[in-house]
Structure formats: C-alpha cells, structure tokens
C-alpha cells in the first residue's frame, strides 16, 4: 500500500528520515518496510496498540537495536551504523529512567558532562533547563524524593539539555494519572514548538496523538497503516484498523454483489446498498454522530446509505440519545447512532431507518496485515 508520504512543502534535509526499515526477531518480522519522514521542528506521533512496532521503531532510531535492512538519516547524515551515544538523539523514557544516585542538577547535566562541556557552561545550561520546565527549586533533590510529574519534567529537562536534533519520547505520560497527563502533554507540545524541537512521540492513546502532533503515523503489527495530519486521520481514516483507532464505532464489512457494493457480514450478502466510493473497498464506516434515525420515507435514489434497523437499546447522554440498533437485512450486525435531543426519537423495539449522508461515510480498505496486501 504505497502512500503519499512526502509533503512537498516540507524541507526534509534537516529532519528524520526512516527508509525501508525492516526488523525481525528470530523468524518473526516485527517491522515491514517502514518509511517515514519528520520535518525539522515537527512532532510525529507513532500511534498503535502494544505489539504494533512503535517501540521497536523508537529503539531503532535511538540505536539500541539494529534493523535487518533500511537506513536512518538525521539532519542529512546517515546514522544507520552509529551507536546510541553518537546519534544526536535523546530519549524520554516511560519510567523516566532518572539516575537515582544523582541530584536533579547532576541528572540534567549528565549529557553535557558526557559530551565534555566545560563546567560553567554546563551549569548555566542546566539552570536554564530547570527554569524552562519550572523545576528550579528541585535542583538539589534526588529522584526518589520527587513526585511522578516532577520526575517527568526532570526527564524532559535532561533530554532537552543536550539540544538533540531529535527528541524521542516513549509513552512518557503513561505512568501519570489522567489529569496530569492532559496538563503535561500540552506543556510538552508548547515546549516542543517553542524550541522547534524535532520529536517522535510514541503513544497508544489516540486522543494524546491528536492533541499534540503535527503528524501521526498509525502502525499495525509492523505495517504503516496511515500517515497524515491529525485532521486527515480523524476525518478520513483509510483502513478499518485506523478508523477503529480513531473512534469510528460503526464499521461494516462490504463486498461487491451483482455490480453493487453491499453490506455483508456473517457471510450474508443481502444487506443495504452502499454507494460505491473507493477501489478495493472492504468496509464502510461512520461515526454514531454522523448517523440519523428517520421514520420518513426516502427517495430511493438518494445518495445516502440507508439501513433498516430495529432499536435494541437507548441511553440518554445529555445532548443526545444513543441508540443501539440491529440491522434488519444483515442479522447479527448492530450499529450505534447518536441522535441529538430535539430531533425525532425512538424506543426499543421500533423499526427505523438509519441514514448516513455521503459526508459521513468513510470508505475503508483492507488493513496492511490483511492477506490481500501487496508489499
């Protein structure tokens, strides 16, 4: 599945370039031909569930693992063969990995010392970093005395202190509680933008990725499913996998029957006609908020998707009602509809028509891991 990956308006010569990375452990291929670009000063999120290959990718970029084939370029330089300490990258770990036997000041200054920066300059840089992350008062403390959020900041300060060409963040917020997570992710984003720090951010949290990224790359079992801006991924997910990740709750399998695309599922193919929308389409998806319940009769030539369904449950959500509906013509399939308060409502047991207008219909193709995928 070749993707339109280069952004013509970007200058990539200074950023990160992953070219055809392939990695396997034993007989297991963990990364298939991954290629990505991150422009200078941009933040790319690697998004996916555990096992999708995002941490492996990070390790390859950092230099802690070697790939089977492929190249990594950073700032115009080929760093494929470089050991971790020679790459101009710095990592923020999920568990912070602060040096417990050193003070905050020594932690933050560690990289500078390792790179032989003279004492005075180191001290100055460290002070600046501590101020930047608002932890100036914690300088003489030890990591064991700090809260999770504070440790997080020290970890960040330590990584940024060496002014890396590339900042790598490995699910840095996973160990924090929700409120902190939301606060700190915005701070990280703000900091990253201020410093124009090129960054790769690994996460399994779709909301996090949407909020802080310039670009998102969704990974699935070592394949790159889709790559684009948050808007693109949210509004136009391309595969069933990505759509599912982006919270598209209704994803129905379709297949061609007598020249028309119909909803299938459970092997039955007597479902509603789907307006044909894309080549090799295997599913159609729509968000509950883009579906509407209607009791009126529709013009049969309407361009919308019309599903006949039976309400099986309803829940009041404040500004809307959420309905679970069983599709009549494809038994066993059910969908969710969010009907705003004020529009026509229904009760469990009612037979209704569920309408999805073209704007809300998402044509979805097979995931990269599906057998039909051609490399």
């Amino acid at each position, binding site marked *: 599945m070749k993707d339109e990956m280069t952004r013509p308006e970007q200058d990539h010569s200074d950023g990160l370039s992953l070219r055809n990375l392939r990695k396997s452990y034993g007989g297991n291929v963990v990364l298939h031909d991954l290629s990505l670009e991150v422009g200078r000063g941009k933040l790319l999120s690697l998004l996916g569930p555990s096992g999708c290959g995002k941490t492996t990718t990070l390790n390859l970029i950092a230099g802690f693992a070697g790939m089977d084939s492929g190249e990594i370029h950073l700032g115009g330089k080929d760093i494929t063969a470089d050991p971790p300490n020679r790459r101009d990258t710095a990592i923020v770990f999920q*568990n912070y990995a*602060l040096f*417990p*036997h050193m003070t905050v000041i020594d932690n933050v200054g560690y990289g500078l010392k*390792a790179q032989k920066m003279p004492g005075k300059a180191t001290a100055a840089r460290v002070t600046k970093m501590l101020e930047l992350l608002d932890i100036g008062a914690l300088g003489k403390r030890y990591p064991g005395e700090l809260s999770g959020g504070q440790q997080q900041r020290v970890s960040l300060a330590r990584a940024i202190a060496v002014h890396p060409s590339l900042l790598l963040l490995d699910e840095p917020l996973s160990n924090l509680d929700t409120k902190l997570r939301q606060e700190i992710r915005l701070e990280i984003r703000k900091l990253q933008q201020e410093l124009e720090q090129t960054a790769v951010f690994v996460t399994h949290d779709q909301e996090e990725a949407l909020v802080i990224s310039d670009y998102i790359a969704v990974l699935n079992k070592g394949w790159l499913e889709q790559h684009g801006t948050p808007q693109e991924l949210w509004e136009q997910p391309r595969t069933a996998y990505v759509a599912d990740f982006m919270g598209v709750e209704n994803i129905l399998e379709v297949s061609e029957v007598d020249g028309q695309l119909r909803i299938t599922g459970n092997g039955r193919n007597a479902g509603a006609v789907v307006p044909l929308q894309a080549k090799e389409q295997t599913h159609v998806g729509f968000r509950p908020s883009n579906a509407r319940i209607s009791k009126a009769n529709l013009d049969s030539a309407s361009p919308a998707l019309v599903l006949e369904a039976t309400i099986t449950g309803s829940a009041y959500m404040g500004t809307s009602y959420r309905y679970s509906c069983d599709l009549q013509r494809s038994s066993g399939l059910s969908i969710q509809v969010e009907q705003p308060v004020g529009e026509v409502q229904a009760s469990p047991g009612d037979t209704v028509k569920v309408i999805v207008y073209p704007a809300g219909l998402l044509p979805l193709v097979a995931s990269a891991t599906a057998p039909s995928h051609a490399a």
Partner: protein
Amino acid sequence: MKKTSSHSRLYSWLLLGPGVLLLTVMLIIPMLGVLPFSFGERTSSGFSGGGFSFDNYVRLFTDEYLRGVIIRTFVIAAVTTLLALILAMPMTYFISRSKPRLKGFLMILILFPLLAGGVVQSIGWVAILSSSGIISQWLQSSGVIDRPLEIMQTPQTIIIIMALIDLPMIVLAIQSSMDSVGDSTERAAQSLGASKFRAFWTVTMPQIMPGIVAGTSLAFVLTVNAYPTPVLIGGSQVRMASPEIYSIVTRDGDWTQGTAMALIVVALSFVIVGVYAKLMSQRFDKWRR
C-alpha cells in the same frame, strides 16, 4: 497479614520448635562454649583443662609464624577478592543482559563449580598445574621450558585459583542486583552521549553497589576460611589459616590454641567486612533513604 490467634501462635512455635532446638543445641551453645574453651589451659591430652589464660591469644601476635599465617591469609583473601571481582564484572554484565534462555543456561554453568565443591576443583587444578601436571609436561615436551613447572605453592597461584573458585559467588550476588536495576538508566545515559563503558561506570555501578559489597564480602570470608585449595595448592610453602588450625589441632593436639586461632580469624573477618561494608555504604548509598 493474618490475624494471629493464640491457636496459630501455638502451632507456629510447634513448627518452629525442632529447627530452633537444633540450632540452639548444635550451633549457639557450642559456639558459646568455644570461647571459654579457648582461654583454657592445655592439658596433656591436648584438650582444655579449664583455668584461664590469655596465652593462646597472645601467642597469635607474638609468634612470628602464627602471626604470619594470619596476615598472609587476610592479604591473600583481599587480593583474591579483588581479582575475582574484576573477573566477575564483565561476565555478570554479559549474563545479565543476555536473553532469558541463554541466561538460565549460563547461570547453571556458572553454578556448577560451586556445587562440585572445592575439593574436586582443587584436585583438578593440581592435575593441571603441578610440576608433573598437564601444563608442565606440555611445556616441557614442546621445549618452552627445560625443567618442570614450579608454580604450585606460590601465593600468586593460590590467588588466581581461588579467584576462579570464588567467581560464581560474586557473579550470583552482583547479577541479582544488576537484574533489579535493569538497563533503562544505562540506556538513558547512552542516549545522552555516554559511551557504553562510561554509562556503566557512572550510572549502573553506583546502583549495584549493594550487590558488589555483598558479593565481595562473601568471597572474602570464603577465601579466608578456605581449606582444600590452600592445602592442595599452597602446600607447606603457603600456609593459610584453616589448614594451620587443622594441623595445630590434629598434629600438635593443641585444641585450645586451635580454637583461639579460629576465633581470632572469625573475629577479624567480621571486623574487616563490617568496616568495609560501612565505608562503602557511606560512600555510595547516600541517596538511598
């Protein structure tokens, strides 16, 4: 936390009873009895005849030979421990960062000499290193040397062999430390620009200090008290504490002198290891609360 009823308290003491009894009767009482025994005056049968005298202890300081044995024992133990530590470090690092299956295999391999016992190992080394041993014959027959190899019964040889024998102990102690510290801080250090060695030395080492101290203390004490290796490899030229104590008792029949020497050696070990552990802790463990 279980609520302890008086019922289960009773059971608990019943269960602990035999073990505690054995320890008390077979360990605590005898050990307590040895101290006064060592102050006793020697009777014609060699055993303690009661009485009280510091002679046995004084002799350990005044008698040149005995004093020499003690000092030699501790010096050799110190050097051996250091050597064993140096040899153990790369090995432990390698094992600790290995994949689980290889790791388990290597651990059993490393444990094997320990379980085989010092006697078997020492016998093997004699066969290798003695003047009529394998290496000696091989070097002579290939013309490298023209006389039998004389490296047995020297302090250097004892140190090297005992370092090899102590090795598993230290590896075990340090390895568990290394495993619990993990490699994330080391990786962090590397990603910040530190070379592998620098990362290990400045970041991992300080964190595994407790393991290092524990391992070296253990190795030190084991070496001080070693018997088969000093006997078989040191022989009469390099006398160490345990063989000397044994021969004082069995050959000279002087039990009181033997026990006095044994107790002094034990006491000295305790003091040395205690001071060592304290110093190391002060230096390296400030950040642990």
